[in-house]
């Protein structure tokens, strides 16, 4: 299995945010993670990206246990993410935001970085070319030298995805990428997801926009109160009575 979330539990004091959740994700899949507010979706993301150490269970990625590793090492194994409330670096241009994400795995060493301007110059050129390519993919290349946080909201969302791609990930975790986007922008986002998927990158998507989730995802996992209550294809999920109950409440309940 490519990515295995195995009996994951995350406790904060007395609160159990994620309770014994297991999810298997295949390589190249677009996997949706949905559920009402507070159902533990973002917590799973935060564990996956190394912000929290799980209270129980483990995460296996390509046969290697990654739960408990520091965040930057998890990024180095091939995880990238965006944030629900965008977190672009505010003192930087769009280009610089992408450049931050590059060059920690390979690239010139620390001493060279200070004392070898020729190697650094070469490295910067490679990075810049790659960044331009990613900005093109997200159709925001024209803003490369603008301050990142001066861009319109929808464009900032795209820059954030481009920045995540700049870490050269195998899996990308998108935390509500359509939040705050209008219908047209959401449709553009869906096309972008297809393009990312075409590059062979596995996508894990947390999203409240059901239309987007149903269209984009091959498999969907539904969470409620930290538990997994359903998993399956979009059609199956839509008809699942447990899911309907979690979202709309029990029939006959006032």
């Amino acid at each position, binding site marked *: 299995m490519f990515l295995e979330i195995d009996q994951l539990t995350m406790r904060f004091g007395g609160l159990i945010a994620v309770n014994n959740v297991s999810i298997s994700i295949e390589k190249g899949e677009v996997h949706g993670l949905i559920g009402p507010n507070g159902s533990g979706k973002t917590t799973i993301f935060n564990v996956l990206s190394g912000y929290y150490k799980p209270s129980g269970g483990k995460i296996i990625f390509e046969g290697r246990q990654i739960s408990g590793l520091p965040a*930057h090492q998890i990024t180095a194994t091939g995880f990238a*993410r965006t944030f629900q409330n965008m977190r672009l670096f505010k003192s930087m241009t769009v280009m610089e935001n992408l450049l*931050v994400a590059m060059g*920690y795995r390979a*690239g010139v060493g620390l001493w060279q970085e*200070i004392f070898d*301007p020729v190697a*650094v110059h070469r490295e910067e050129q490679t990075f810049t070319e790659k960044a331009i390519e990613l900005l093109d993919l997200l159709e925001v290349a024209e803003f490369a030298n603008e301050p990142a946080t001066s861009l319109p909201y929808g464009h900032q969302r795209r820059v954030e995805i481009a920045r995540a791609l700049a*870490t050269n990930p195998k899996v990308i975790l998108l935390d509500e990428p359509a939040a705050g986007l209008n219908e047209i922008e959401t449709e553009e986002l869906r096309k972008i997801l297809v393009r990312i998927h075409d590059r062979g990158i596995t996508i894990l998507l947390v999203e409240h926009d059901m239309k987007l989730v149903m269209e984009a995802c091959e498999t969907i996992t539904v969470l409620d109160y930290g538990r997994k209550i359903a998993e399956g294809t979009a059609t199956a999920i839509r008809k699942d009575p447990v899911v309907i109950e979690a979202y709309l409440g029990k029939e006959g309940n006032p």
Partner: protein
Amino acid sequence: MRKITRILRWILILAVACLMLVLPWIAQNRYQVHIANNIGIWLLLSLGLNIAMGYAGQYNLALGALWGVGAYTAALLQTRLGVPFWINLPLSIIAAAVIAAFVGLPSFKVRSHYLALVTIALGEAMNLVLVNEVPITGGADGIGHIQMPNFFGFPINNDERYYYIILIMVILGYVLGRQIVSHRIGRAFRALRDDFQAARAMGVNTGFYQILAFAISGAYAGAAGALYAQLNTYISPDIFTFNSALIVLTMILVGGMGSLPGSIVGTVLLLVLNEYLQVFQRWQLVGYGIAIIVVVLFLPGGVVELARKFGNFRRRWLAGLSKGKSDAEAG
């Protein structure tokens, strides 16, 4: 238009370079050269602190004590073991950088002003060590009879000759600083200052870069210390305190946080003003306090922000001018 600007800029740089080179000859007296040397030493301190604080957001206010680590390392190596300048200088840099890395350890637990408080305490504790370890440091009396450097038989025994050593070190410090802040290391610094969590998710080893920021400011302070000890031939603990760190902090706040030219502007401005305001010596710290308040309130980016604002204004003015022209032609 841009071409002319670029040429003007090079002329300016060249003029400043020439001025720097001949300064000891055009100075009216030895004291002015001494002031220039002093400025050079403080420049190294403020460049180092600006990299750590302005770029990486790491409040290293143990800087005064780290300056002392550099000075005492050089002084002890030189007076006790006869280690010449060319060897004790790099050793002082390494010593201060290593100690600074340890001073940076609390940055894993505390941030911003809390980190500032912890580093102030660490700096003062280090100063107490200098005062109380009498057998090694000479206590409050300090260390005297430090030799000035000797370059293969050519003695660098006065302010004019020493000036060139300091000039080289400052230029080196500036160029290396530029190299650090404008590429990958600098971006990692700014990333962890802007948004710590996002930086981690982008693969920045935040702990490593925090310690690196401290070590770099320590290295600059170490160089400043070794230069200071062998310029004055006498050192004592009373200058290697929080007070000095505060002066450097004022310099970079006034000049411009997160801007290396800002360090230069702030340092030169404060030290030159200081010379003219000797009469008010007692009020020096009050003056610094007022300067900080004024800058924070009215010019948060420091004096260099004025230059940037002027540049933007001029660009807009030029754009408006050419637009008006084309409008007139069209009309």
